[in-house]
């Protein structure tokens, strides 16, 4: 199946990312576009999922503001997490309600994308029973939370590459007490790959695992007209 991916070079404010996702979601529901994956970095932001509990926030709203971290209640599944530059966020807008749905389930596919990406850099990733996401011996490296509307997905997965993990110290990530958070940088140090290389790995594995051939675009490059009007704010 053919699908599109759109890569954003510069960090995207959370609200803007959300608006782009909502436009794509609606267009996908109405079959105006194929399945489309956004890959981007956010400006520093803490987001709470639907059931996210505020007691997993360790700072006051004012303290977050002083730290330059935005705070959002997101309508996705999952608990609280942190996004910031140096972390890839994958937002797949996929129709999961028909023949193309994988019996392994979407959650498991996203985990697999993270695990295979880690393997590209010699890092052993694994699943943990009852705890979603992708884990390494050093801690959790990829977090997942998504929502389906008319069986089209939005929100998705974040993958820590070289981001400053301090932001995670301001929350109890995913509501899991005492579980460390890792990044490729904390594991590989000097050998940590560059962001563009990890973007390629994530999209390659997404393509294979989710069985979608990706036509790749850059948000500030040439886009199909149907996509341009959804991705750009005019």
């Amino acid at each position, binding site marked *: 199946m053919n699908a599109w991916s759109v890569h954003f070079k510069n960090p995207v404010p959370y609200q803007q990312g959300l608006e782009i996702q909502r436009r794509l979601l609606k267009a996908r529901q109405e079959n105006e576009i194929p399945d489309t994956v956004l890959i981007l970095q956010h400006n520093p932001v803490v987001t709470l999922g*639907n*059931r996210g509990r505020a007691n997993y926030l360790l700072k006051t709203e004012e303290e977050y503001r002083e730290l330059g971290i935005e705070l959002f209640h997101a*309508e*996705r599944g999952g608990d609280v997490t942190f996004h910031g530059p140096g972390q890839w966020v994958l937002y797949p807008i996929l129709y*999961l*309600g*028909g023949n193309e*749905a994988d019996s392994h389930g979407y*959650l498991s596919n996203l985990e697999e994308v993270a695990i295979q990406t880690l393997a590209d850099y010699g890092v052993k990733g694994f699943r943990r029973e009852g705890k979603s996401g992708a884990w390494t011996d050093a801690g959790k490296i990829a977090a997942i939370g*998504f929502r389906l509307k008319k069986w089209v997905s939005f929100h998705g997965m974040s993958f820590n590459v070289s981001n400053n993990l301090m932001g995670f110290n301001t929350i109890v990530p995913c509501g899991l007490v005492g579980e460390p958070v890792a990044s490729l940088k904390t594991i590989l140090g000097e050998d940590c790959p560059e962001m563009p290389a990890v973007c390629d790995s994530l999209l390659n594995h997404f393509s294979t695992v989710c069985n979608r051939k990706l036509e790749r675009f850059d948000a500030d490059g040439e886009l199909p007209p149907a996509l341009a009007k959804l991705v750009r704010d005019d």
Partner: protein
Amino acid sequence: MAVPQDLFYAKTHEWVDLNDGIATVGITDFAQNQLSDLTFAELPEVGTEFKAGEEAAVVESVKAAADIYAPVAGEVIEINERLEDNPELVNKDPFGEGWLFKLKMVDESDVDDMMDADSYEELCPND
């Protein structure tokens, strides 16, 4: 995958059991399986009126939240209160004890726009 013959199905994976103008609504086996273990079901309030296709409920698993739509128009006359403490009933018995809510239908012919079991099965992955 189980698809009982005597129900009506929506493209968005809800089922309807029509009985005397009352539509019992739930989600299909396919749907519960895709969402994996449910941890929460946000059901509508009794008395709420829905048009066909309107968002009526949200079900959540550990990492996913999915919107559920009213497959037919009607007023909510009962919700499955057991799901508050036991959302996993939707996974265990999606076509039975895991029903979500009951609608007093405005127009019974709404189900004519829904699929029968055979058409619905064609929509789902074969495995």
